[in-house]
């Protein structure tokens, strides 16, 4: 009997997480429809594709962040990793190096920084917020030292062309990123090892007891986040065409906000990459939506901040109410069962 109830509860939790993503998606659609009502150009297919293209960077970062958040940790250093790997690979490309080399170097940079973060958090037991905050500062200075505080410009045309390639009228990078997000979602939700990440965040001691190598998976999560941050750096370099010293400054906060909007919990264990990706599209669409609404750009940060607070608080209140209701139902059921037995 208890067993069946557990299964029922599991399916309830499952449907709730689905609802969360669903709510985010509804919100995204609403955003587009409402802005579209004011200015029809906003929902033209061209603009929607454009909005997705502009949010690629955020999507990639948010997916990496989701891995770390799922294990119950946090990674603040991604903005700096983006900047450093973009400028290193930018310099390689500018000086005539091959694209392949630049990509490999960038990924290695992200991987090594992620590894350091992961080892610091798991082995030295430094709180991940502090560890990655310190790393953010260190990596940012490294970037300034590497570039001597100058912008990296004159990237070769063939590299910039990558972000502009189209297939069936849709940007190739967009297709790749969307497919990758879907694949990663199935990895995290359906494969045995993919579920480890959420299991660790949900109950770390429990994960240890059932034999999950917790520390290894935490390190892996940080490495993935670092690597994805450097891939985002490559996308940034390819899309923008130059790298300033402040590239990616403060982007980590936007990405965390995006992940949280998409239903990823900072406590760990809850969330999906699809939700995070939708959150990322919302965060980056607010910008262009304001342009289409002819609202001055200085409203941007106030609106995204209040949206974040309202959505998260509303979500928490809804979830708590649902929790209370299920607890009451369970209690009632227990009492009824008891009466029947008597």
């Amino acid at each position, binding site marked *: 009997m208890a067993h069946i109830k557990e299964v029922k509860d599991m399916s309830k939790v499952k449907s709730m997480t689905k609802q969360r993503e669903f709510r985010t998606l509804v919100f995204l659609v609403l955003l587009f429809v409402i802005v579209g009502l004011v200015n029809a150009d906003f929902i033209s297919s061209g603009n929607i594709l454009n909005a997705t293209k502009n949010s690629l960077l955020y999507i990639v970062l948010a997916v990496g962040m989701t891995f770390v958040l799922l294990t119950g940790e*946090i990674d603040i250093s991604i903005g700096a990793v983006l900047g450093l790997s973009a400028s290193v690979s930018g310099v390689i490309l500018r000086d005539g190096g091959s694209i392949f080399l630049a990509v490999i170097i960038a990924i290695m940079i992200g991987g090594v920084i992620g590894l350091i973060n992961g*080892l*610091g958090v*798991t*082995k*030295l*037991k*430094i*709180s991940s*917020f*502090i*560890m990655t*905050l*310190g*790393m*953010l*500062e*260190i990596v*940012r*200075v*490294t970037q*300034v*030292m590497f570039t001597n*505080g100058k912008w990296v410009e004159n990237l070769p045309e063939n590299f910039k062309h990558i972000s502009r390639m189209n297939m069936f009228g849709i940007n190739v990078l967009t297709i790749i990123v969307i497919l990758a997000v879907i694949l990663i979602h199935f990895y995290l939700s359906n494969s045995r090892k993919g579920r480890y990440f959420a299991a660790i965040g949900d109950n770390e*001691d429990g*994960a*240890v*007891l059932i*034999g*999950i*190598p*917790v*520390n*290894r*998976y935490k390190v892996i999560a940080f490495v993935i986040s670092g690597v994805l941050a450097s891939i985002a750096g490559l996308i940034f370099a390819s899309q923008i065409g130059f790298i300033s010293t402040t590239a990616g400054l403060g982007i980590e*906060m936007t990405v*965390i*906000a995006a992940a*949280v909007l998409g239903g990823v*919990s*900072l*406590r760990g264990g809850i969330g999906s990459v699809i939700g995070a990706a939708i959150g990322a599209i919302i965060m980056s669409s607010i910008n262009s939506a304001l342009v289409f609404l002819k609202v*001055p750009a*200085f*409203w*941007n*940060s*106030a*609106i*995204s*901040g*209040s949206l*974040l*607070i309202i959505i*998260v*608080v509303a979500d*928490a*209140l809804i979830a*708590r109410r649902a929790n209370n209701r299920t607890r009451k139902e369970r209690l009632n059921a227990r009492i009824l069962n008891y009466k029947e037995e008597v």
Partner: protein
Amino acid sequence: MLKKIPKWNVVLLTTLLAEIIIFGLINPRFWNINILLNSFNDFVGIAIIAFFVTFVIITGGIDISGGSIIGLTSVVTGLLAQVYGLNIWVAALLAVLVGGLCGLLNGILIAYSKVQAMVITLGGMLLYSGIALVLVGFSGASTYEGISGFSQEFINLANGNLLGIPHSVIVFVVMLLIAYVLLHWTRYGRYIYLTGINQNSAEYSGINTRKIITSTYVLSGLSAGIAGIILTSYLGSSRADFGAEYLMPILTAVVLGGTLITGGKGGVVGTALASIIIGFLKLGLQMGGVQTQYIGLATGMLLIISVAFMGGQKFKLNVRRLLNLKKDRGGNLNA
């Protein structure tokens, strides 16, 4: 008597003295007491926010919105005084209250909706700096130049001195005393610690933990407001992006000061020492000829290393384990 002083504070004090000696040897001008006292101007804002963020972190929360509250209060002061022609001191007082309101919003949302403090204050950070930008946008002032033209009296608030001691040092000491008395001498302070150690048991022993948590955010908001006023006075203009880069130094000061990021343990004296250490480190490196943009390297390393050390005696064990990584498959319960 000596036993009563926490060990970590002794370490911090030694570090501070060592820092003064070493930087003095590199550049003897560092030993000039006036230069040292005047350098308080550069970090007094960070320090006074850090005092009260210590409260927040002791209760087990975190407040990353302090930096943007500085920008908001700075803009509010500038607008009220220069555009609407209010008396500058009334304007400053109102601005500090605005900071307190921001903290109140953070605190109520965190304590009553039980959303993670990090998320709410992140939203708050975006929101408050956003409101500051909106206010500047409406007033028609240039975002880049900000609002200037404050009266000399107000400029004197941060730049003047009393009996040769710069006002910023006095503000530092006064705020430290307030924070110290609140945290270590009153019942309220004990409640803050209890809430951080175990919120449930604090709740069961009759403490209204929600009120306690909310109040710490209010204090942190008020202190950010005061820091905003001081910074506005020091720089003589109000801009929305003041304090934008304060997040990292504030948290460094609190954590380096020996406050556990998980809550329940810490103190303001450590925070004060740590913020002086960081401030002097910056000054010393600048005097030693290091460019300003490289100083983040030092503070970042300081942050990570100090937290790693504070893991206590386990640190050596951890380093040893790091060295033979392969043997450890992870997941030791007693780790």
